[in-house]
Structure formats: structure tokens, C-alpha cells
């Protein structure tokens, strides 16, 4: 008994939309980072779903790569956030207007 493909795609679309919505609305940098994780995981879910459909294992390899990449990205992102907290004294991204013209 397997989960039908459309359901999985609905779930992945929902995850992606929630991620994008978080990206647009969050002010907190960690919130943003979490939203990026949601978007990445939505794409991982898509890879795995279509890999099962076509019986292809390359998709699962891709999913592993993306998870590793997401971990790296979280590390770099957190390091930037800590640096921001130290130097600018805030992690709310709308306060950070250093590049505003």
C-alpha cells in the first residue's frame, strides 16, 4: 500500500508555500533560516516521490546531497546570524539597512 503521488505533491507544494510565506513575513533571521529549510525539504520530497514513481535511485542520492547541503547552509547561516548579533546588535532583518541606497 503506497501513498498516491498527488498527495505527496500536495504536501510538498504546501511545504514550499509555507516556506515562501515564512520567507516573506518573518523578521527574525532564524525564522528565515527555518523557512529556507522548509523549501529545501519540499524539493527533497518531490525528488523522492518522482524517483519512486520511475524506479530510479538517482533521485534518492540527490535527496541525500540536498540534506547535506542544507546542513552546511544552516551552519553558514547560523554563523552569519551570530556575527550579525555581535556586530549590529540585532537579528531582525528589517533593521539591517546598511546597503540601502
Amino acid at each position: 500500500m503506497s501513498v498516491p503521488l498527488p498527495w505527496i505533491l500536495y504536501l510538498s507544494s504546501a511545504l514550499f508555500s509555507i516556506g515562501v510565506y515564512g520567507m516573506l513575513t518573518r523578521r527574525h533571521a532564524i525564522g528565515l533560516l527555518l523557512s529556507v529549510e522548509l523549501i529545501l525539504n519540499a524539493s527533497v520530497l518531490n525528488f523522492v516521490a518522482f524517483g519512486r514513481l520511475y524506479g530510479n535511485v538517482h533521485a534518492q542520492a540527490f535527496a541525500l546531497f540536498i540534506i547535506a547541503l542544507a546542513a552546511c547552509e544552516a551552519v553558514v547561516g547560523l554563523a552569519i546570524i551570530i556575527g550579525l548579533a555581535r556586530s549590529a546588535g540585532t537579528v531582525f532583518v528589517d533593521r539591517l539597512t546598511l546597503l540601502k541606497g
Partner: protein
Amino acid sequence: MPHAPDPALMLPASQLAWIPLLPLSAFVLLILAGRRLGALAGWLTVASLAGAGLLTARIAPAVFDGATLTLRWAWLLAGNAGWTFGLAVDGLSWVMLAVVTSIGTLIAVYSIGYMQGDARFSRYFAYFSLFCASMLGLVMADHFVLLFACWELVGLCSYLLISFWFEKPDAAAAGRKAFITTRIGDTGLLLGIFLLAASAGTLSFRDLAAVREALRPELLTLISSLVFLGAVGKSAQVPLHVWLPDAMEGPTPVSALIHAATMVAAGVYLLARTFPLFTPESLALVLAIGLATHLLAGTVALTMTDIKRVLAYSTISQLGLMMTALGLGAVSLAMFHLAMHACCKALLFLGAGSVIHGTHQQDLAKLGGLRRTMPVTWITFLIAALSLSGAPLLSGFWSKDAILLEARHVNPPVFWALTGGALLTSAYLLRLFLRCFHGSPSPDAQHAHRAPFIMALPLAVLAAGAAGVGLVGTPWAGHVFFRMLAVHELHEGIEWSMLALSGALVLGGAWLAWTVGVRRRNLLPRSVRPLGSRLYALAVNKYYVDEFFNGTIIAVTASGARWLAWFDQRVIDGAVNVAGLAGARLGFGHGWWDRRVIDALVNGLASVVRAAGIAGRRLQTGLIQQYLLVVVAAAVVLSLWLRP
């Protein structure tokens, strides 16, 4: 005497140029580096003049043999025609060279003492050298153009030296007066030169005899009268004599050299040089002017109380005598008197300079009794005064009596007038002498100091000259002077009647000087005394010539100048101001256009760009979420639009 002169004695003609060049180089050196030379400046001038004198002496034998030494060079050649000009020395020039170099040297030595301590000591000697160079050039010129150039140069030096103490307003004014007055005469000379060049085509003195043959007599009369006008200005003849008395504002040695001995005699030299141009009519004019000058200036000299002014009027009077001799046709006699007068008058002026130097006083009323305090000046002044008065056997006697004798032969009325002039001469000179050196000593005379040796030496040498040089024109010395001038009709022997007359005239003059000039006795009968005092007023006011000029020519010129100044200020300046105002208004309008239109366009463009920038800048907030929103919105729109 056509024997060949000894070549060793001959001066190569090229060395002629050194005679004026020596003082000229002294001038250049002094004007460039005079300050550093200090007292040496005076000796440099003396050395250059003595050198020129030695060269003059070296050429004497050749000139005496009748040779004319020449040095010519081409100038303004155009095709075959053209002007050459150069230096030529014949007997006439040689006499002038000898006078200028010898008296110039002595006066330069005297000046070293006189100008001691003056702030512009070296400048004085620079001008002095330039004057001597120009004067030597003038008498050596063989061509009207070179002569005229030197003529103007001596005028310039005269101006510079009269107003040498330009801090005194009187001296500055006197310099201007001398320059402008002689310029009137110079204009005449220049016109004469133009006329000669246009009608005869030659300006060389060699060709004058040929010119006389070629031209019509009326034209010759006109040319020679114009040349004579130049001489009237330079030699201070009536009516252009007014500058010479004022010229006494200059240093006294300058008065001696320029305004007594040499430059003022240049007019006489000019007439002697250009004598072939003169016709009987123009000679009559010369005679009339000369005689009038001789007598009028003589009477004025009787009434002056300033030592130097007495001498200035005496100079004018003696120049008048020379002109009279020229008018009688006796060129050589005029030159003879010129040389003797140069000697005597230089000595008189240097004596007056010693008095002024010793007492700081030049008013006869404040002088007197200087005989004891200044013995050298006293004796030399006496010799000069007697010599110029014509006391027998002194230098002045020979020259003056030769002229009187000539007049007696040629024109008896002139002879009697000249006798009166001679009486005037001895009267004013001896009056000056007696009031200066005799009588009760004035306070200034008691504190007078003697002339230093350097000033006394030239006095002594000149006194010897004033006493003895005249012998060169006597039968006892074989008429050396006249043979130099190539004159061969000579009076042999001494005219004893003239000697007696001269002696009587000097004694008469001395008696008049003593009774009228010193003891103030009025010899006139009571009935003519009012007339006498009126004549005296006329003479003491110098015949109102200055007033006449002030009232006529100067007043007309001045009012013309005022009118022109008004015209200049109102019309010319007005036009200029209107043009300026128009320019300013135009500039103002242009500025308005520039600011309001051109600048507005430029600024407007800039504002548009800035406004666009301000608007565009709103887009770049720096908020990544806004950018993302745009990206997402665009993705949504694109995905809907690109839907298959």
C-alpha cells in the same frame, strides 16, 4: 705748403672716431657702473677727455698743412644713390675740438672738487661725458644729419644738467624752458635741412659750395635763415635768449662748459660751417639779430644782481658779438672770438663757482671784500674780466679788436655800435668784479673758505689761457690761428689806434663800474633822470621779453591746452564713457541671459536626473524580503502567463 706730413705724426683717419668715442665709452661705463666707481668717476671723465685732447693734438700738424681728415661710412644705401656720412676734421673743426677738449678737461677736473659729496656724483660725470662726446661729434660731423643728431644730443645733455638738481622746482622748470625754447630753433634748423635736401639733394658739408652755385638766391636765403633760426635757439640770440639766464640753475661747472664755452657757441660754429649757404640778405638778418642781442643783453647784464645771471647775460651779449662778426662776413674772426670767449667765460664761471662754493651766496648785495679770503679766485677773475673787456694785449683784446677793426672797414655804423657794446662789456664785468671782491667784506665773505687745490688748478691754467692764448691770432705768432682756418688776407702789424681805443674803453668801463655800479652815483643830468630810471626799469626787467612770451605765445598755448583738456575730458572721455557704459549694459543683459536661460537649462536637466534618482532610490530598500516578494510575485505572474 704741399710737403708730405711725417707719417709717424699722421693719425690714421680711423682713429678720428676715437675722439668722440672716448667720452662716449666713459659715459656708458659711468651710467652702468658709476656708483661703484665712487670718486674715480670724475677721473674717468677727465682721462677720456684728456685722451681726446691728445688725439686732437696729434692731428694738428696734418690739419695745419691744410689737409681735411675724413672718415666716412655708408648709411642708407639704396641702389647707387644713398647717404654716406662720417667725420671730417678741417681747421674749423679742429679749433672747436681743441676748445672743447681742453676746456672740457679743465672743467671736469674742477667739477671733481665742486661736486664733491653730491648724491648723484657719478651721474653728473656720466652726463658730462655724454655732453662732451656729442659736442665733439657735432663739430666733427661732415653731414647735416649727423650734426643734427649731435645737436639734439647736446640739447638733451643741457636739459639733463640744467635740471640736475631736479628736487628744486626752479631747476626743473629751467630745464624744461631751455629744452622747449631751443626746440623752437631746432625746428627751424630741421626745416632748413629738409628744404636743402629736397632742393639740392645733398646734405654733406663738402658740397655746400656747389650748392651755392646751383640754387636760386631766394631759396638760399630761406634755407640759411632757417639754419640761422636753429643757431638763434641754441646760441641764445634775441628773441629766443630767454632760456639761458634760467639755465643758471644748473651746477656752475655745467654753466661754464655748456652754457658759456661750448654748446651755446655751437650756433656760431654751425653758421661758420654752413657759411657758403648765406646770402647778403640772410647775413643782414644775422647782423641785425647779433647786434641787437649784443647791446640788449649788455644793458641787462649791467642791472642784474645775481653773479651767474650777470655772466649769463654777458654770454648772450658776447654770442651776439660773434653773430655780428658772422653777419659782417668775418667767419674766422667770429671763430677767434669764440675760442677766446670760451677761455675767458669758462674762467669767469669757474671763479663764480668758487665764490658760490666758498660762501654759499650768489647775490651781489650779500657779497663783497672777497679779495683777502679768496686770493686765487680774485686774481684769476680779474684777468678773465679784463681779458674779455678787451684790455690791451690780453687774449680777449685780440679777438674783439679784430672784429671792431673789420667793422670799421666794412660797416662804420656797426663799428660805433660795437664800441658802445665794448664799453658795456667792461662796465658790467668790472662792476661784477668790484662788487664781489672789493668793498667792505660781507658776513658771508668773512667765513668764506678758499677753493681747494683741485678747483684752483683749472682756474690758474685757464687764467694763463685768458691772458696769453690770444697771441695765436697776432702777427707776433705768425697768425697761426688764421692760417689754421686757411685765411690768408691778414692785417700785418698792430693797429695802434685800436689799441688806444680799447684801453680807453676799458678804463671808461672801469670808471663807470666804480662810480655807478659800486658807489651808486647817478651821473645823469637832473632833467633826464626820469627817462633814465624808466630805461633802468626796462633793463632790470630784461625788456619784458619773458612777460611778452608769457602774455602771448604761452598764454595762447596754455588756453589752447586748456580748451583741448576740456575737449578731452568732455568729448573724448564722454565718448569713451558712453561706450564703456554700453558695454557694461550689454554685459549685464548677456549675464542675465546666461543665468536665467542657459544656466536654467543646465540646472533643469540636472534636477530632472536628480528627481528620477530620488524616485528610483525608493525601489532599492535594502530589504531582501521586499525583493523576494517581487520575485515571487513575478514568478506567479510568469507561471500564470506562460501556462501552456
